[in-house]
């Protein structure tokens, strides 16, 4: 077993995949507890879709205006962050009382998916890049992308460490938080901003499918396994990190796609947590 692990992570690109994946797993796992409890799991996939549409927009703009477009052009990240911000505004504010906020998530997802396809169809190199974002290949992650992601992750972690109680209060009982002087809308928007920032950087290294899975499965696993919220957060981080190593090892040994292998391991972990929960009664 140890030999298999050593062999799996002998190559640089596999070690980079492990680091990037664990970073994404830890951060998405933590945020996923909120995402699951707030019943906004589809905000994750919609923000991811909007970020990838932003990348498509960058490739389209480069083609139309004749910018040189390299693999790690800051333009792609700018596009991803710009559309992520649009998504945060769209999903965190209640624009009208006549339609539920959830419908905006659907609108954002559908329009971003369609816009992404339209934009890459008229860009020179965009199709391959955006398809990689959508389905992801964590094995192609570069050191530079990992460092950039780590910087964004540190910022998100700092914000959540400083304002943990504010996020919790506003998330649990926004009405009373408002009554006690908190600006619930501000804190909601800040939360979605940290979520969007995480997603925009994480999909670059892990792809939409894996990031969405990491936002949902570890959170559910943690809430099944633990009885108290304060324990759910570290367990969710662990449940986000653990399947990365196991999934990558299995994908290497059995020659399966890496992201899908990680998702399956994460799902099996969730089933195990469900079993433990049932056994406890």
């Amino acid at each position: 077993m140890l030999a298999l692990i050593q062999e799996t992570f002998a190559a640089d690109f596999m070690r980079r995949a492990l680091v990037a994946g664990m970073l994404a797993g830890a951060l998405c796992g933590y945020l996923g507890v909120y995402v699951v409890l707030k019943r906004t799991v589809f905000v994750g996939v919609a923000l991811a879709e909007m970020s990838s549409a932003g990348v498509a927009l960058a490739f389209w703009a480069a083609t139309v205006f004749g910018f040189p477009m390299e693999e790690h052009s800051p333009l792609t990240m700018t596009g991803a962050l710009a559309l992520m911000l649009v998504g945060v505004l769209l999903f965190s504010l209640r624009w009208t009382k006549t339609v539920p906020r959830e419908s905006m998530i659907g609108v954002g997802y559908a329009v971003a998916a369609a816009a992404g396809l339209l934009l890459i169809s008229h860009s020179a190199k965009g199709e391959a890049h955006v398809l990689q974002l959508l389905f992801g290949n964590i094995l192609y992650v570069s050191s530079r992308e990992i460092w950039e992601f780590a910087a964004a992750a540190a910022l998100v972690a700092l914000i959540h460490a400083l304002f943990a109680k504010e996020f919790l209060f506003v998330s649990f009982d926004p009405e009373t938080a408002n009554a006690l002087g908190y600006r619930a809308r501000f804190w909601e928007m800040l939360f979605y901003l940290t979520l969007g920032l995480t997603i925009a950087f994480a999909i670059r290294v892990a792809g939409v499918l894996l990031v969405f899975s990491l936002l949902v499965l570890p959170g559910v696993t943690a809430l099944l396994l633990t009885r108290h919220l304060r324990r759910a957060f570290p367990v969710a981080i662990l449940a986000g990190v653990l399947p990365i190593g196991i999934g990558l090892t299995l994908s290497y040994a059995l020659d399966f796609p890496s992201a899908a292998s990680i998702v399956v391991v994460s799902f099996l972990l969730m089933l195990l947590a469900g079993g433990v929960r049932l056994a406890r009664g």
Partner: protein
Amino acid sequence: MPAGKQTHGAPGAPLISFEGVCLGYGSKEVLTDLRFTIHQGDYIGIVGPNGAGKTTLLKAVLGVIRPLRGRVTRHGEREAHRCGYVPQLNTIDDTYPLTVLDVVLMGRYPLIGVMRRPGKADRERALHALEQVGIADLAPRLFRDLSGGQRQRALMARALASDPSILVLDEPTNDMDIAGERATMELIDRLHHKNSLTVLVVSHILNVLVPHVRRIAFLGAGDFRLLPIDEAITEEHLERLYQTPITVTVVDGRRVVLW
């Protein structure tokens, strides 16, 4: 005794005054020309059907919404009119695995300030608040596992943990059986008398409030006027308000409204 607290006798100093206040959202006016003052030691009931604007009025008292017209004046120092808020039970999310103590500690958050964590003193204050509502033994239990009545008490403890001068309660007896309703209202009575709290309580059921409050106002039935209970709960006044025959009787020393 902290400012803003008075137990008995005539109403004390004014805490919050509404002068010709119009409340609403955007261009939609929900309540117009509100004129009343909450005094130290008041025990006020607001009655009205669903949709009459009770929650809107509470939000204005709490300072969450600003008046479209008129003026809301908060007298004295901030501590004098600090409100503890007990929301409707059905607005609370029951999926969060938070202990009762975690929930009550939230009442301390505004006093602790941003970027700081609750300390030992905050935990002690939260436990004391739980003692005040008689459920100190439930502190380590999960909030979501409690009965409706116990949850209501936990939310009252959270409001008390914020060291309020005014306790504001929105439909505190909703979805409760008779025993739960009675226990909740008696607890509010006790907090008013024993802890010298000014109380503002809202309900859509008149008979829930009548035996307890000292002043009452009716929303959605013509003029909004805060009247002493003896003046408000008369057959003549209620028949004029509701345009229907009404009987006011006294059972076991409690005033009861029949229709």
